[in-house]
């Protein structure tokens, strides 16, 4: 004990003196962490009872954080204590942070509009801020400890959000299933990370990539890659860890399902892109993706196998769903498959960067179309008390604005022109084709055709199916609802027709480490 403590003091003092971290670069995440405490204290002072204060407070704080990220300058260089740089707030993490914060803002809006009684209302916002902070750190983590902490923060808050309505049977089921799968996948990933550390002796992604390139392909590393991918696959809802997804999305409140489907998935893809392509602060060190070009690359093999299985499973399972919320869960799995397909060709060369930009671009589009679709589910749950597709029957005549907007979102999710979803799909498929993986792209295209069938189901109910006397749709959207739905649909058309060039440039800048 005695010799240890002075040594520790020495070491810690060295770290402290060498560099006090530049905290300004951690500001958006810090603000989100602070909001966790602030809302708790506000709740303490106010006492019990619901209040309109919390949504306003949350949306205000998220908007401030969003503007801080949007207008804040991106300074090159990693942040961390002493010799342990752990966060690199570069352009890539910046664009993903915008996605998370926008999703968080919209989620609070949806919760407000769903008019559901959320017990212990303040706690919901506390957990949401925890999740957002975790995602922001996950997107910029450059070493394993920070990565794992942020990953678990996102997971735990996700469990709590999914099971937030614990008195509801389905809600409790969703929360429990999420926890069970999460615990297992987390253990598996941790084991994989420990193997990686055992082989490379480093926590830094850049150093690990360098050491792995030298070590070549070894059985233990293959095992490690599979295990680490297991953790990623869980959060991305990709095969073989996708089983929790439909039940959790269906059992959670619709706004929470929207949050999980967009923000959580974006967070894990942000982390995945960083793990695969991070080459140190200067970007000059070899990244893991350098190893992916070879035929024998285990990482690429895993990604391709999982991509094919994920999109096929998601699309075919979605065919038989009658609940819109559940169908969107399977659709979210299928989208994870498309994204993984493109992730298998990412790299630091030009084509690899285009693939990365395609993924970033798709998330920007996916954010709009998927959140819009989940808002329709929120309305269905609120007014009709069900997410069954048949509740939409006759919408085309009764609420044409809502029906047409929803149709645009569905077209976009399918990837049909002239919507932004088409451009997004194009950017996902193009690098795969250009790389010469024709078979993989063909599987993706066939899946796209299959998805046409189930995305058309709500359309048929809304526009073609005849209303049954006395069973007219109970959806009663007011002006605000219509405004929100339109606000989600219009950008999809505008981006699909002419605005997409700018967004593509944004995505290209983000992956090229340009601030």
């Amino acid at each position, binding site marked *: 004990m005695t010799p240890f403590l002075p040594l520790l003091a020495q070491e810690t*003092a060295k770290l402290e003196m060498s560099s006090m971290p530049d905290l300004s670069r951690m500001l958006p995440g810090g603000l989100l962490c602070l909001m966790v405490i602030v809302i*708790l204290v506000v709740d303490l002072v106010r006492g019990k009872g619901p209040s309109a204060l919390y949504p306003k407070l949350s949306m205000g704080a998220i908007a401030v954080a969003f503007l801080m990220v949007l207008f804040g300058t991106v300074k090159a260089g990693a942040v961390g204590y002493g010799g342990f740089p752990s966060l690199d707030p570069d352009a890539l993490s910046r664009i993903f942070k915008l996605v998370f914060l926008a999703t968080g803002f919209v989620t609070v809006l949806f919760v407000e509009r769903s008019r559901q009684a959320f017990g212990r209302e303040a706690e919901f916002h506390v957990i949401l801020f925890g999740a957002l902070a975790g995602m922001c750190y996950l997107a910029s983590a450059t070493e394993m400890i920070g990565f794992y902490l942020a990953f678990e923060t996102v997971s735990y808050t996700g469990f709590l959000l999914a099971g937030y309505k614990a008195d509801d049977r389905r809600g409790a089921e969703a929360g429990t299933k999420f926890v069970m799968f999460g615990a297992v996948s987390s253990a598996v990933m941790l084991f994989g990370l420990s193997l990686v550390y055992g082989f490379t002796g480093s926590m830094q992604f850049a150093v690990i990539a360098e050491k792995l390139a030298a070590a070549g392909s070894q059985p233990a590393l293959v095992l490690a890659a599979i295990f680490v991918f297991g953790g990623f696959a869980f959060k991305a809802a990709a095969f073989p860890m996708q089983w929790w997804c439909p039940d959790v999305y269906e059992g959670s409140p619709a706004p929470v399902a929207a949050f999980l489907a967009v923000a959580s998935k974006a967070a894990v893809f942000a982390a995945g892109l960083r793990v695969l392509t991070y080459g140190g602060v200067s970007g000059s060190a070899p990244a893991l993706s350098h190893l992916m070009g070879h035929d024998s690359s285990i990482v690429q093999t895993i990604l391709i196998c999982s991509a094919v299985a994920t999109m096929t499973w998601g699309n075919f399972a979605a065919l038989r769903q009658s609940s819109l919320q559940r169908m969107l869960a399977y659709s979210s799995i299928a989208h994870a498959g498309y994204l993984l397909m493109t992730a298998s060709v990412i790299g630091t060369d030009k084509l690899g960067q285009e693939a990365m930009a395609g993924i970033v671009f798709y998330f920007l589009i996916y954010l709009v179309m998927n959140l819009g679709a989940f808002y329709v589910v929120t309305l269905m749950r609120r007014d009709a008390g069900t997410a069954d597709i048949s509740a939409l029957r006759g919408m085309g005549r009764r609420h044409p604005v809502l029906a047409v907007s929803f149709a645009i979102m569905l077209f976009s999710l399918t990837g049909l022109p002239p919507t932004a979803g088409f451009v997004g799909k194009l950017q996902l498929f193009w690098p795969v084709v250009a790389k010469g993986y024709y078979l993989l792209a063909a599987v993706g295209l066939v899946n796209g055709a299959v998805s046409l069938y189930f995305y058309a189901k709500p359309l048929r109910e809304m526009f073609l199916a005849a209303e049954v006397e006395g069973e007219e749709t109970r959806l009663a959207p007011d002006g605000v609802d219509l405004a929100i739905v339109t606000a989600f649909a219009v950008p999809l058309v505008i981006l699909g027709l002419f605005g997409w060039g700018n967004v593509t440039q944004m995505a290209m800048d983000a992956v090229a480490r340009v601030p």
Partner: protein
Amino acid sequence: MPQDTLNQDFATILVFLVFGALFVIANMVLVGRLIRSKTKYTEGKSTVYECGEPTFGSAFVRFDIRFYVLAVVFAIFDVEVVFLFPWAAVMKSLGPVAWLEAAAFVGVLGVGLAYIWRKGDIDWIPAHGHTRQAGKTLPGELTTVPTDGVPAATIPAIATPAVAEAR
């Protein structure tokens, strides 16, 4: 060759594993046979040992979930103390930054404690939401069930009836 050094590093671990396994097996099978008592099976040997207390009842009973909440809160502050010991030992040499960091750490935990306290999560009888029927239960009694207006007969026994009976 990095690959060779990697393998050599793991060879050490392999040696440890092999010797560890041998150590356990040798002690259990060979050494243990020489040392241990030759008395055969008795009734007392097969009973559960629980810190010298005679055991009673089955362990497969439903525990009140409030034990769990208290245990989690306890664990948090237990770990806090573990973190504070090394900090306290080196605080002087680290200066005000270390003090501020620990203050933020304890402060966050303090807010959490105040929160659960205020929300009644560490009261044995929740302060809100539940009304205790007069004369039916006593605080601190293991069989206490918050009835919340539900007839007592419909609530399954949560605590340990076996304990109550045995006493």
